[in-house]
């Protein structure tokens, strides 16, 4: 192989693979297309054959959406979902790196911190199935069968994973940075907020993304805590909607689309950060 051709192959793009990957995108787009088309149709347009369901609506009708919003109490559910997600993200990013800082900087010196690390991280293997029944009792006891309880549970459940990510990342933050601050008379708190916290920015993004996706889409926790309270998150509203009005597909799909759009918009806006955040988390 001479120098010239090797340079050429290095710069040229692989067309067959690109084409295959483009074709594969159909598997992503088809379900979304189906959702949009059915959501905008009147029930009368849903003829029995497959084309009746899949072809573009004759006139794009918004009536399904207004009705679906009413039936699922959309704005209220949206507000609940947003409050839960935002609080979870904020608390995870505030509390979890603190735990990682206290543990990570002392793990080598003290058995207590080493033990705490093992104890907290092992929580990763506890399936929610074993916790859910006692958790329902416990939160009822503390009067936390509401969004506040859901947030607390998320902060506790995401701690093992986040602790692992943060302590892993903390190893890259040089100890000398804080030592310098300590020499200048800084306390642990000031050193943390002025040096450690800003230095862990990439990990904050990762943790925030994972917490946001997890909290926004979760069904189990709100179902068990707030299931009978009449107050819903977006996924919970879909669940209740489905058990009551499962016959009108156009209405149902309008409500699905309403539930998907906020997270899709969020994804489109922060796509770069989300993807690099997840990659960051994977590399550790």
């Amino acid at each position: 192989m001479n120098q010239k051709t090797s340079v050429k192959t290095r710069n040229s793009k692989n067309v067959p693979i690109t084409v295959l990957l483009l074709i594969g995108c159909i598997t992503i787009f088809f379900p979304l297309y189906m959702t949009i088309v059915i959501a905008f149709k009147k029930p009368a347009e849903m003829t029995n054959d497959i084309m009746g369901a899949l072809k573009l609506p004759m006139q794009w009708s918004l009536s399904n959406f207004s009705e679906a919003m009413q039936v699922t109490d959309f704005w209220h559910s949206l507000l609940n979902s947003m409050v839960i997600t935002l609080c979870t993200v904020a608390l995870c990013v505030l509390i979890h790196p603190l735990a990682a800082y206290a543990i990570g900087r002392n793990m080598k010196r003290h058995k207590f911190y080493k033990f705490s690390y093992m104890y907290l991280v092992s929580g990763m293997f506890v399936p929610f199935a074993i916790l859910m029944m006692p958790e329902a009792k416990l939160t009822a006891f503390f009067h936390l069968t509401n969004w506040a309880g859901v947030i607390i549970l998320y902060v506790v459940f995401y701690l093992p994973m986040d602790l692992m990510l943060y302590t892993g990342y903390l190893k890259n933050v040089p100890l000398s940075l804080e030592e310098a601050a300590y020499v200048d008379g800084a306390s642990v708190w000031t050193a943390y907020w002025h040096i450690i916290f800003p230095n862990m920015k990439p990990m904050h993004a990762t943790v925030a993304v994972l917490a946001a996706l997890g909290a926004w889409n979760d069904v189990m926790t709100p179902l068990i805590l707030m299931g009978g309270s009449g107050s819903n998150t977006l996924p919970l509203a879909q669940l209740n909607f489905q058990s009551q009005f499962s016959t009108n597909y156009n209405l149902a799909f309008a409500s699905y689309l309403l539930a998907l759009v906020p997270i899709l918009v969020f994804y489109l806006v922060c796509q770069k950060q989300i993807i690099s955040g997840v990659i960051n988390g994977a590399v550790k």
Partner: protein
Amino acid sequence: MNRQKAKKPLGSRERSYFFILLPILILFFLFNTLPLIQGFLYSFTNFRGFGSYDWVGLRNYADLFGDGRVGNSYRFTFLFAVVSTVLVNVVSLILALGLNSKIYAKSALRGIYFVPNVLGGLVVGYIFSFFFTYILPAIGTALGIADLSSSWLARTDRAWFAIVLVAAWQSIAMNTLIYISGLQTVPSDVYEAGAIDGATGWKRFRSITLPLIMPFVTVNLVLSMKNALMVFDQIMSLTQGGPAQSTESISYLIYNNGMGGGQFGYQSANAVVFFIVIVAISVFQMKYLGSKEEQL
């Protein structure tokens, strides 16, 4: 690592660290460890979720092993977990290789293939439920494929596979991204050196790429196995455990009969067994796969 020991651990600093960690430990104990212990204790009672209850010793555990419904849920869950783990990882690895090669619109394609992961499992399940109930049978009838012409979700021998497909559709996105980040850690000069020795195509993948991304394979296999074992949303939205309890996952059975069916104590025992099984599998996977990891 050459980490200096702090010269003289100041008392106040030590105390700060301790008081930062203490509330977090308490919170974690209260909402994770305590319920775990409670669940363990409930597993020795005949508690129905309300009213009074008695200690029944190991009876729940003894009953579990003779319970056909529980046995069924384990069979389904394991079949589901193994098939979807294999399917997800094979497809994600192929996708990742494609998305990591020199292609047009690389970042756009990566962005598109990650979309399923941001969508909620429940709603996706509802959408696919329509697809399996109406669209796929219509296609099957039109093409004259007998196997597709009736809804998979209504057939005891096919419903599980429909759930595999939906769950895979969602989790392939995350696994692909993890594999991409793994592929990016392989330095290109290793490939160049391999090319000189004649490693191209499949051989190159088998003897260079795969061994070097083994840590990522481990992460992906453990993650997807763990997630698949705990499958819930897709069951809830696609089949609710049916037809004829053929798709009842362990999580779904514990939720359904434990929370609503008055079997709080009994399903707690089921949950304890489930917990032990999950830990055992994860530890085994990490031990076995960890030993296959290689370093440059």
